[in-house]
């Protein structure tokens, strides 16, 4: 078997938070708590979950924009989680990020050509070929070469996201972390961007970590899907497996909440009660037991481990 492109082992991120005037008592917000997964070359791993469940934090740690509290990130077998800022800089061209908000992620004072050329300059792409490369990239993402001289505010949200994608592609990365790349866009534009991402994946053999909260978006683009809840991955499986036979009660509830465009279709909805607990004080045992309709006594005490139930279908639940 081929070695995975990315391997994440027991990744944790605790944000320290001081309580009290003199910061005497320190406690932690467990944004990401013991997450492990692998991404193979050329595949798309989708990460879904409610807001605040740590999916963006995971993506940012993978990009080394945040330092993990604990755990390892292996990229092509090399550990990148322990490198310092100077050592990581050269490897950064291997993994790039597409951001959620296309209005905020482009510097409003720079021309599009300068924005897209920036990674080229940073990673020492020859000067004479830069302009040509920028024009090529613009065409690859479905914009015109003459857009290069404009400023970001002259574009629509979808076009801006295309610029963001062009910037990410500039240095031929192997991995792209897409942090909710379509959630700020109109539904009609969302599909365009998703299809663009799919086409690019095929053309350039890209690997994606696709973060989203929209299950239908994730279904469209992913090969495998991980479901996160309160900083933990509760279920991780191939897309078809996960959508056809979800195992974890949380996944079932999420899937039952996806709107179906058929008003006559009767279906069972699992409605979760209560709010998502605070990650600074997560429930004992299985973090989902406070809202789980199938909670047992065991769930309150023992933290469930991620187990392989069937072929490549991992669940962390005491029911299985």
């Amino acid at each position, binding site marked *: 078997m081929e070695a995975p492109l990315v391997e994440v082992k027991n990744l944790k991120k605790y944000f320290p938070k001081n309580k009290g005037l003199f910061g005497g008592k320190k406690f932690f917000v467990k944004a990401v708590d013991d997450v492990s997964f692998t991404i193979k070359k050329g595949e798309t791993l989708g990460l879904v979950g409610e807001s605040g469940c740590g999916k963006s934090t995971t993506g940012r740690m993978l990009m080394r924009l945040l330092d993990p509290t604990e755990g390892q990130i292996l990229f092509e077998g090399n550990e990148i989680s322990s490198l310092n800022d100077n050592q990581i800089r050269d490897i*950064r061209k291997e993994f*790039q990020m597409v951001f959620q908000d296309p209005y*905020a992620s482009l510097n409003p004072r720079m021309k599009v050509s300068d924005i897209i050329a920036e*990674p080229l300059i940073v990673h020492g792409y020859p000067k004479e070929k830069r302009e040509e490369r920028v024009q090529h990239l613009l065409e690859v993402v479905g914009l015109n070469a003459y857009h290069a001289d404009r400023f970001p505010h*002259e574009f629509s949200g979808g076009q801006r996201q295309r610029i963001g994608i062009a910037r990410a592609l500039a240095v031929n990365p192997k991995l792209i972390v897409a942090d909710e790349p379509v959630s700020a866009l109109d539904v009609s534009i969302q599909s365009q961007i998703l299809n663009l991402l799919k086409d690019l994946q095929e053309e350039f053999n890209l690997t994606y970590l696709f973060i989203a909260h929209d299950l239908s978006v994730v279904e469209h683009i992913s090969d495998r899907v991980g479901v996160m809840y309160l900083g933990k991955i509760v279920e991780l499986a191939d897309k078809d497996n996960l959508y056809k036979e979800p195992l974890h009660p949380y996944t079932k509830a999420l899937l039952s909440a996806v709107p179906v465009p058929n008003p006559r279709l009767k279906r069972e909805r699992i409605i979760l009660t209560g709010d998502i607990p605070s990650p600074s004080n997560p429930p004992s045992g299985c973090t989902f037991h406070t809202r789980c309709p199938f909670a047992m006594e065991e769930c309150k005490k023992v933290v469930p481990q991620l187990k392989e139930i069937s072929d490549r279908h991992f669940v962390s639940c005491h029911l299985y």
Partner: protein
Amino acid sequence: MAEMKVGEVIRQPLPQAVNGTKSTPKQEFWRKFKKQKMALAAGFFVVILFILGIIGPFIAPFGAAEFDYDHILEGPSAAHWAGTDAYGRDIFSRILIGTRLSLFVSLLSVFLGSVGGTILGLISGYYGKWIDNLIMRFCDILFAFPGILLAIGIIAILGPGLGNVVIAISIFSVPIFARIVRSSTLQVKATVYVEATRSIGAKPRRIIWKHIFPGTLSSIIVNFTMRLGTAILTAASLSFLGLGAQPPSPEWGAMLSGGRDYLNNAPHVTFFPGLAIFLTVLAFNLFGDGLRDALDPKIKD
């Protein structure tokens, strides 16, 4: 439209987007700035001052050191618009010639101060941690002194003279700029596009100069203008105290000081240089206010 079928409507070309609805930042700035009549007038006055600063010595009817002992301490007349001083020198000409001196001293000192302050503020805001603490505590120390006292202290060490006035004013401008630039740096640093640049793998120097510095520029410009007025006032004060420009030179503060002895029988000797200082400082402050209102994105129409 009524008889059009759905299919036809769909086949119709979409209307072209109207161009020019979103103006560039420059147009936006000008649209907001020209609405402020006071600032506009002040800006106009500032422009005239700079022109006078350049051509003043050539259009002045008399020289700066043209003595005329037949006409001493004379009030305003057709020949001497602002009267003459104790040596019979034309005050109006001296003010015109002195414009260059005042503007030059204030521009140079505020420029030096803003360069120093901007660099310190950028470093402090971007790197944070101990270096931020070090720079900001150093600024706090400088802030603890009243500006003019600090300037007097610096001149006490360096000795009197216009060059040392420049150094003194620039030193006490540094912490002001450092603090303002630091706060804008913190703001810009938190934006997604700076994070995006970091994720590309850009070095801190590139992030600071290409992304953060342009974002702090508007607050630097506003403060630069505001500080110019204060710098002119401080330079004049120091010269008045005899610490800056020395008597024969037509510096406004020195002229004020020279007329002090004749305040009772010839008030115009102090009045006109004083008026020049007053108008100049006021103009720079109003101009700065207008710039701030036009450049601040938080103030909407």
